[in-house]
């Protein structure tokens, strides 16, 4: 199968069950909301070393306090890890940011206390406020008001986590870095238009895709040599002679439908650049991930 003369390899991406939370950060203006949100999402590329995968979903004006807000999606392998990361990131990146407030913005089956722990920073001067129950929040949303030097930090007591899909991916293979990078940019731009998904790596793009295992005993994963052009002749390469660059787009999504849509939009956008030869995907033979995303099906 081809799109604009770009071959779509008959393979699949392997995605995993994760848990997601959506944190809504509001502030006096979008610039300050974005300052805080980008810090929350910082160093959140992979669960392997960052604790969680995080990315900015987008700016919004649909906020509880009517101020400009930014939605951040965070993904982790367990609700424990997610709760831990939320505590750290909201405590250090939202509470510290001028004029910010922080709200739960995803209903899920798991719940963990965040504002209810951060409140102790108020040193006894923190104040609890609770809204009346609604169908979405049968107990009523509870907030903590923590006095800070810039005024007052408002944080929701609990945040929720829902089952999600992480690790969806596709590889953009081409003749050189310029066309592949251009195609990656187009793909990420298209993916960012899809709600409920993030591409957590820098600019949404990964250049150092990995394979399971390594020649070193202490290392569980290492560079994906089959797609490394500079060692093409030294390993069992998946690249042709004319292919000199591969970049990967990794996607996390709140649900599989959003994941499929993001894959679809991203692949189609990537295939509009001359110099891109193939679109492939990373997988582990279908043995590890819960979700199999067949490239030909999503496009």
């Amino acid at each position: 199968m081809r799109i604009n003369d770009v071959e779509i390899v008959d393979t699949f991406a392997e995605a995993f069950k994760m848990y997601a939370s959506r944190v809504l950060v509001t502030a006096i203006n979008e610039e300050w909301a974005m300052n805080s949100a980008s810090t929350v999402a910082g160093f959140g590329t992979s669960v392997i070393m960052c604790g969680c995968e995080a990315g900015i979903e987008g700016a919004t004006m649909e906020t509880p306090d009517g101020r400009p807000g930014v939605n951040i999606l965070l993904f982790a392998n367990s609700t424990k890890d997610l709760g831990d990361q939320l505590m750290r990131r909201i405590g250090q990146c939202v509470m510290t940011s001028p004029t910010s407030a922080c709200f739960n913005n995803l209903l899920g089956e798991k719940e963990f206390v965040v504002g209810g722990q951060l409140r102790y920073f108020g040193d006894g001067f923190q104040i609890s406020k609770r809204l009346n129950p609604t169908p979405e929040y049968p107990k009523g949303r509870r907030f903590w008001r923590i006095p800070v030097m810039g005024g007052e930090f408002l944080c929701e007591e609990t945040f929720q986590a829902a089952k999600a899909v992480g690790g969806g991916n596709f590889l953009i293979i081409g003749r050189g870095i310029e066309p592949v990078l251009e195609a990656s940019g187009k793909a990420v731009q298209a993916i960012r238009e899809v709600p409920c998904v993030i591409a957590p790596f820098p600019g949404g793009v990964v250049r150092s895709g990995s394979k399971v295992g390594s020649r070193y005993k202490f290392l569980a994963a290492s560079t994906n040599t089959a797609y490394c052009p500079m060692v093409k002749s030294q390993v069992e390469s998946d690249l042709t002679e004319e292919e000199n660059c591969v970049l990967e787009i990794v996607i996390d999504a709140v649900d599989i439908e959003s994941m499929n849509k993001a894959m679809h939009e991203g692949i189609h956008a990537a295939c509009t650049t001359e110099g891109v030869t193939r679109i492939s995907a990373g997988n582990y033979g279908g043995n590890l991930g819960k979700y199999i995303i067949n490239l030909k099906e999503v496009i």
Partner: protein
Amino acid sequence: MFLNPLLKTAIPVTAPCIAPDCFSGKSVKEIKALTVYYGNKEKHLQDLFDIKDDGQDVITLGSVPTVKYIGKGMTAGSIVVKGDAGMHLGAEMKGGRITVEGSVSDWAGAEMKGGEIFIAGNAGHCLGGAYRGSKSGMNKGLIVVKGNAGTEVGGLMKKGIIVVEGTLGDAAGCNMKGGTLICYGRPGDRLGAFMQRGSIVLYESPYLLPTFTYNAVYNPTWLRVFLRELAKTPYKIPITQGHIEGAYRRYNGDISELGKGEILVFQG
């Protein structure tokens, strides 16, 4: 179900049975036979009311200014009073909605634990308050009064929201332990006396007790959230964008008590 009072009387009628929970699952005949007290005399509901099944789930009453305990302890459903209602309306209610198109007497919403009460007219004393000897008054829920309210509104209130669009009598929010009291009219004297926690939000300048101390002028984010939520209710509370975005002077008190309560006065 429509209940039209058969007689105008100054004698109090005690009728906690007028509640959706009590009517639920009963035939009209059984409802007519429910016990009420007319003064100290035991009567059936049909002795005092003309009861008709109008096919609606809502309990509708005519003007019943001497009927007490309407909707007491109710957990769900709706009551509409097409006129005035007596004392203890919605006392200890846990859910559902009561709408009064006229005014209500004292102790409306006393110790309520959920649900909503809307009063188009005035409210009496001790709205959302605590009965004598109780540790706390209103604990969750929403009361909206379009008119004025009497003394000791929200006394010992613990959680929930009371909105009074008119004036407040003396000692509003006395002994408050939590919750939010919002008043658009002028409050009476001794506002927030002995309050420990909780918030009183005012849109008219109050006379404050000397046991309240000024802190700062700012726009409280939590109030933005609360006002925007209240603006979504069907009660047409006069919340403006200025109220949401404006600055408030914050006083804390009552420092003769715990002092963690607050009075926020709208500055504009």
